[in-house]
């Protein structure tokens, strides 16, 4: 009975959504060339950043990114707070049994390459797809591989939180530096260089690198916390 009601409600809801989005008018009445062309134009001419999405994420809508980083920070902190237990076993292992020697040898071998891949992704955030979030996530995934392949691989929570704090402070500080130099928060106050060079885009790659460090530290901490959770 409950299912029937739910399905009926969903049908109504879906009908409205379908009428909205599948209507040809929905495309026909669209009117948004201004923003897109402005962004594409200014990204090349002023910011000298090849990747427009990066330019939007870090510069035009940089405030969102600050909020987003904060959301991740909050999520990692909240995870620690929610799963908090009073007795804390120091000798807790993340995994119960050792992995096969092939898996552990392979992870050891591929781990630096994964970290390098992450670093590559966030250093080239303004040139190729990707950036701080993606790079940070890749690095965290690398740590995840090590954590599940080795029983005695441990990361210091303090180191993680120091990295995280410094990256976050760096982000806000760069924003405030723009505030002091150019007049607005997060303003691009550094020289922009030549399009498609590694050193271009002014403050954008710097902020994305900081975001990369921060996301990597946050996600690694998150995984580390949740892996230590034994039911």
């Amino acid at each position: 009975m409950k299912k029937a009601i739910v399905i009926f409600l969903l049908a109504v809801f879906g009908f409205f959504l379908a009428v909205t989005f599948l209507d040809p008018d929905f495309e026909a009445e669209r009117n948004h060339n201004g923003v897109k062309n402005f962004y594409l134009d200014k990204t090349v001419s002023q910011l000298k950043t090849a990747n427009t999405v990066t330019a939007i994420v870090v510069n035009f809508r940089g405030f969102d990114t600050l909020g987003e980083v904060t959301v991740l920070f909050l999520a990692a902190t909240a995870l620690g707070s929610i799963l908090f237990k009073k007795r804390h076993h120091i000798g807790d292992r993340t995994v119960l049994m050792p992995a096969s020697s092939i898996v552990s040898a392979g992870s050891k071998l591929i781990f630096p390459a994964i970290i390098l891949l992450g670093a590559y992704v966030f250093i080239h955030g303004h040139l190729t797809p990707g950036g701080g979030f993606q790079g940070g996530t890749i690095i965290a995934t690398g740590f995840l591989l090590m954590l599940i392949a080795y029983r005695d691989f441990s990361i210091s929570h303090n180191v993680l939180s120091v990295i995280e704090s410094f990256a976050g402070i760096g982000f806000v500080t760069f924003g405030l530096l723009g505030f002091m130099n150019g007049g607005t928060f997060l303003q691009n106050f550094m020289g922009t260089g030549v399009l498609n060079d590694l050193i271009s885009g002014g403050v954008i790659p710097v902020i994305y690198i900081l975001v990369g460090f921060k996301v990597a530290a946050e996600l690694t901490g998150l995984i580390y916390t949740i892996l230590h959770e034994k039911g």
Partner: protein
Amino acid sequence: MVGSPVLLIAIPLLAAFLIPLFGMVWKESVRIVPGLVLAYLTYLSASLYIEVINTDTIVEIIAGWRPPWGINLVFSPLTGFLTTIMTFMGFIVWLYSYRFKRNVEFEAAKKYFIFLMLLVAGSVGIVITGDIFNQFVFIEIVGISAYALTAFYTGRDSAEAAFKYLIMGSLSASALLIAIIIIYSQLGTLNMAEIAANIDNMNPYYRIIAMIFFIIGIGVEAEIFPLNGWAPDAYTEAPGPVGGAFSGIVAKAGIYAMVRMMFTLFDIAGPMKILIVIGLITLIVAETSALRQEKLKRMLAYSSIGQMGLVLVAFGMGTKAGVFAALFLMLNHAITKPMLFLSGSFLTFNTTEKYIKQITGMAKKMPVVSIIFVLGALAITGFPPFSGFWSKMAFLSAAADENLLFIMATILIISIFEVVYYFRVINRLFFFEYDDKISVEPHKPGFNGMIALFVLAFIVLMIGFYPSSVTGFIDLAADDLLNTHQYIDKVLQLGQTIIQ
């Protein structure tokens, strides 16, 4: 220029990232730094507010791109008014909980204060931002801090309340995103002023669909009727001061977002009636539920939801008097409800259930706290010499101007309900004998907590005896909200003066 609105967001975030570092060096700093930050925010927003009133609305652009393209923050008489209240209440809640968390471990205390600070910062962000997607991000910040704060205590049913809140919160965030998608695809912009200026170009059908999704999206924070199922549980299960923070800070931000959306974004006459309907339903359902609650905090939570409904009804009238009454009600509620929560949580200290019967006869053991509780109850039910009276009067006269007799009658009946359930508590508090078996163990309230309560009581009395001290501010704020064209001009004209 004393500072910039952007510091209202940047400073708490900076501090949140700094606190773990400070905590490694000096443990006490995790309690002190958030307080300093909140005090600074209160100072900053108050001084900005005064500046705004005397000169002109501040529109802060970010990253050097003018409004239609970049994100902008708007610090107007209205947002300044709300921001000042919210930061001040954040400071009060911090003050109250400063020693409250001393018996908790260091790690937990650190997290508690980070969440509290970011809750305030996120709510301020919701209010001052001028960009709908940015508002979504801030709603998520508020949301996650609120989930974490709700689930703060282990051993209660807090995780359940938080989970309920989370499900509703993320569904509503999805609805908000759909609304943003519709608006962006039709108008090609995310800036509120630009949307407001171009809303007439939008197909009315899509406009209504987008508006419905917006209402669903913001309704969870604003505690409107079908979406407020989380509120009573979350208020009950969260630590005492957090209930105050939810009702005094988060709900205000939600209401603001809703009203800004209705008045500025979708400036249509008809849907205003929606607000009245939603508000009335919320009000009636909440107040009748409050009548049969046995737990103190749950009762306060329902009362808080009811007040939000009242505010929405007042906004729904759409007139100057109505908006004035609504803002006045918001101010009152923002001060009185935290006062009730804070004193109530002193009265039921260290219990998990917080039944009303547990405070039987506590007035003799903790007279000062009890008197403050009564003061709050009287203020919120609208007894003459206190602040609530003036706001209810403003509300009734606004309704009378519009000849909304039905609403007036409803409000009067609801007020009787309120009186009944608050007096039930007061009766137990004062006119029953203290009983060891059911009542809680009285304890000595902390010094800081008492200061927080006294400050609130002082404000309630001050507004009660000199309502003219705040009506001027509220009047300006109401003008600001109603004047959509001025908002659009202020935001977009700025763009023409600072051209990249």
